[in-house]
């Protein structure tokens, strides 16, 4: 199981993946926006996206859970 967490405070601009998707290493899951910069959050390893913990418009803090891949 891989937990993907936020590296910085950011707004969730776009949720690209859907819970239940099969994802490949490097696939974009979510696009964050911080300080006018878009920051893609990618799958760190292949598997099934069992949890997507954010929604578009959310403000997330450093360390917050974004997704779980199993």
């Amino acid at each position, binding site marked *: 199981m891989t937990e993907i967490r936020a590296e*910085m405070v950011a707004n969730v601009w776009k949720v690209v993946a859907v819970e239940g998707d099969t994802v490949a290493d490097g696939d974009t899951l979510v696009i964050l926006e*911080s*300080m006018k910069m878009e920051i893609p959050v990618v799958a760190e390893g292949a598997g099934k996206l069992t949890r997507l913990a954010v929604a578009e418009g959310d403000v997330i803090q450093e360390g917050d859970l974004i997704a779980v891949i199993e």
Partner: protein
Amino acid sequence: MYSEADAELPFVAEADEAVLIGPAQAKLSYLNVDAILQAASSSGAAAIHPGYGFLAENAEFAAQVIDAGLTWIGPSPEAIEQMGDKIRARNLMASAGVPVAEGATEPVADENAAVDLAKQIGYPIMIKAAAGGGGIGMSAAGDEQSLRSGFETARSRAERFFGSPAILLERYIAAARHVEIQILGLADGRVVALGERDCSVQRRHQKVAEETPSPGVDQGLRERMLAAAIRAGEAVGYRGAGTVECLVDTQTGDFVFLEMNTRLQVEHPVTEMVTGIDLVEQQLRVADGLDASFDAASISPSGHALELRIYAEDPVRFLPSPGTIEQWQEPTGPGIRVDAGYTAGNTVTPHYDPLLAKLVLHAQDRAEALALARQAVGAFIVTGLKTNLAFHADLLNSEEFGSGDYDTSVVSRLRP
């Protein structure tokens, strides 16, 4: 005026009167025209200075300010509109005798049209949002495949950030310096040029450090660029402070018009340091119909000035680093000016630009300005979040920047 996210910041405390205009989300505050006009009305303000972000180059906003009976501290809405669309601006500049790079004279309709045009101009080619700025949606394409993908990316970003999908293609200049001319349209209609700024130190097409005079511009080129910038301003009946941005091809020594910023620039302090002219004061005077406070016929810049933008970002990959500032200690001394938006205890939010402060240095010549900058960067203490101060130290110590012989790729060479 301020948003909820900025309530604790020094500019709010320093103002005689401050009005809360909305929540953090820019759309609901700094881009909310109704809230801004309401704040002006409730506070009895007679004029609006738009600063250099958000609505500063929005012609419709300028018109609404004027319609509300307020003084707009900036050029006419017509001038903003003519320069806001990069394609129209290019065409207008070409007809005013300002050199432009080979490129589109109308918006590029679709991917296939882009490929056809690229065949005429040749690769690599630059893709830009016609209504854009800040490097958003901009990329260079080396072949048809990257043009196709870059075109689509540019379109979607242009739509999202600027509300217009219009795309411009332009010949790409491989090794270029970004050199811009400060102009000032006076109340009597004359346009004067106040020298150039070299803004070639950029990451993600955004400026990180600027200097004047440009080490890559000799007196002959300077005279031609200043004359072209005056023609550019005259072509749109420009009033107030504006900047004509150009690219200087380091191979040929020629320059082309890039775009015009119809507002004050972030990096205006370097011009102020060498000319002794307070640009914001001139903006206010022009808006009020007064003469400039200096003699336009005898502008004589002295010494060398440098501006380092202190960003809340990591100094290696330049990724945003919002957070709370623990320590904030600014360098002080002769020739050192710090324009800061933050201080100890403030929280830097992810909502806006990462610019924390501008560190500006002024000395007799470039070597002395660089030495002063190294000392000032070393004395600037910010803790609690990451800043790019360590990058500036590397930049100042690099052979390439030190030599003055650098171009817009200098940052990518320092941080490969």
